[in-house]
């Protein structure tokens, strides 16, 4: 879907991005993590050509991104930045409608799309459509920023530290919302963050960068169990890696056949870490896993869970 081949960026004598290659699959979220100066933002911005590569290329659905004028390419790619960059002189509705207008959609289609997005992002159209950005809270502005990026139905969404400016309570909700959005619209998302927990929470795959080089690109669990580099291990955190691993598996995935309706029950979607926490708290040794319809579909014991905390 997005194939990054040997992408390099040099400024005079400094190499900021050093021959990076990986492929982002359709309908998935890739998180790019690294410390500041690792080149992750520059890499992201080479995908939509806000920065022109010194070498290598990006293939979007098989075709080279350099095949058309940059500004036309960007109208097909959603872009969200940390400061959200909402236009202060336009209303929320006008902000969201920006790219559809550039693409010359007709008015009724634009109107219904704006309304749809406002509903999806839990911003009541009657109240918020005609509001100006300065009238919104930080969290609301961030949501409008994402809505604006998705307005023209792009297949790809690029996000650069999108939740950085939010306080922790709102951040968790915003992350959840993003997962919902991705499921709903099927967008391929590439997200840059310096927060490893966020990368683990959101990413189907995580790319770890350091000093311009890509150290590892894998599923989060693999990064924990098989780090390619001591730096990767340090970044993902050695101290509580077992617990982290548990948080990456759901109850449903780990459940063994069996289980009674009595005693502790947990939904299948919950992570093993939460199940373990609950079992410890109650002093219990096993829990029944409930499927989506509420009927038991398996059971988990402390021993089973502990076994999962190892590579």
């Amino acid at each position: 879907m997005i194939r990054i081949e040997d992408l390099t960026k040099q400024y005079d004598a400094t190499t900021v991005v050093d021959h990076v290659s990986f492929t982002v699959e359709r309908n998935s979220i890739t998180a790019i993590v690294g410390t500041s100066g690792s080149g992750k933002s520059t890499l992201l911005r080479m995908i939509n050509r806000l920065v022109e590569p010194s070498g290598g290329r990006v293939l979007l659905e098989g075709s080279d991104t350099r095949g058309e004028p940059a500004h036309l390419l960007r109208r097909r790619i959603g872009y969200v930045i940390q400061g959200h960059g909402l236009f202060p002189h336009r209303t929320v509705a006008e902000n969201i409608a920006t790219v559809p207008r550039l693409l010359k959609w007709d008015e009724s289609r634009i109107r219904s799309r704006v309304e749809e997005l406002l509903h999806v992002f839990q911003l009541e159209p009657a109240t918020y459509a005609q509001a100006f950005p300065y009238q919104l809270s930080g969290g609301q502005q961030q949501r409008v920023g994402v809505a604006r990026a998705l307005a023209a139905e792009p297949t790809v969404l690029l996000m650069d530290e999108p939740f950085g400016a939010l306080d922790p309570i709102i951040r968790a909700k915003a992350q959840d919302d993003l997962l919902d959005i991705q499921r709903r619209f099927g967008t391929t998302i590439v997200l840059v963050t310096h927060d490893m927990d966020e990368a683990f929470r959101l990413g189907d795959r995580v790319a770890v960068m350091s000093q311009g080089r890509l150290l590892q690109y894998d599923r989060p669990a693999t990064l924990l169990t098989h780090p390619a580099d001591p730096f990767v291990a340090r970044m993902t955190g050695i101290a509580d890696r077992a617990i982290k691993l548990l948080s990456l598996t759901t109850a449903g995935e780990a459940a063994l056949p069996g289980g009674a309706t009595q005693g502790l029950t947990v939904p299948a979607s919950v992570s093993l870490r939460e199940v373990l926490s609950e079992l410890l708290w109650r002093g219990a040794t096993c829990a029944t896993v409930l499927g989506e319809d509420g009927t038991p579909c398996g059971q988990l014991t402390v021993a089973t869970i502990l076994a999962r905390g190892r590579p």
Partner: protein
Amino acid sequence: MTAPARRRIDGLGALLSAVSAAAVLLLPFVVFKSNRIVPGDPHGLLEVLAPWGAATCVATLAFAAAVALLARGATLRLAAALLGLLAVALAVAAAANALTPPGDRVVRVAPGGAFWILLVCLLLMATDAITRMRPGPALRVVLLALFFAIAGTALAHGTFDNLSVMREYAVNAARFVREARQHVWLSVGSLGAAVIVALPVGILCHRVPRVRGAILGMLNVIETIPAIALFGILMAPLAALAVALPWAARLGLSGIGAAPAAVALFLYALLPIVANTVVGLKRVSRATVEAARGMGMTPWQVLTRIELVLALPVILTGVRVVLVQNIGMVTIAALIGGGGLGTFVFQGIGQTAIDLVLLGAIPIVALAFSAAVLLDALVEAMDRAKA
């Protein structure tokens, strides 16, 4: 992989060279008039100079053009521009000498269109070069002084004596010195008086916000009255005052001449200085003032040693605005008999003698420009000293 260094033609240099070349080819370099009133015959650059003179001049200008197009170093560009200016100045002087029969006092050789355009283009090139060098305040003042020294020497030496403007000067020499002195005196004197009054008023406006609106509003209204109107309006009351106070009349107070102009300039100068004093004082951080008070300074000491000192750059900016404004407005004072270089300007307009106009206008522009450069340098030097 780095981009190869490309030799690019400087956009400004190309523009200036093209315009200058066109001017030299199409417009007259000097205009020969048998007396000061007739329109006169045009002469091109090449026809009016001796062959070696023309060749030197053209070569220098070509060099300047080449530098303008290709060179990047600011110092080189400045040097080339100055050389070009020198060549043009000497050329026009030589042309004047060549066309004037010896001993003749009536003919006028005036600079033509090509001269002015060359002058403007070379000055632009020099200004651009100086701006790129980003000179500090001291260097700018030195450059200004140098320029005047060179120009003054050339004028005193008589190089330009046969040029029309200098001919007019020769005729009006004594009057010129008198009016120039009057011009400076009026400009600076009214400014000085205004500062003495405006500074306390500004401090008052800063300390007592309630009167600020009223005072600034009133001063704003004064600013909107056009200069000639205010000059005129003051004439009658001042005349009456002169009659009522004979001692003042002996000191120079009167209904005509410089007095109404001086009073009007004084009134106009109030607003910029009061406004800037308020803004400057506002900018002084409360923390600094608190610290000073905490150290045991009396309010007067805090004001004079801390607040005014810190507000000085902003106040000086107001002074600069007023001085430049005054130099311009004193020109108009000539209309009510106030003297100054404006007398030459308006006389020239009345007699359709452009050279007389230039005799007045060029010094006025030089004065205004120098005042601006000097005060800007002073403000910048103070800002740097603070930081």
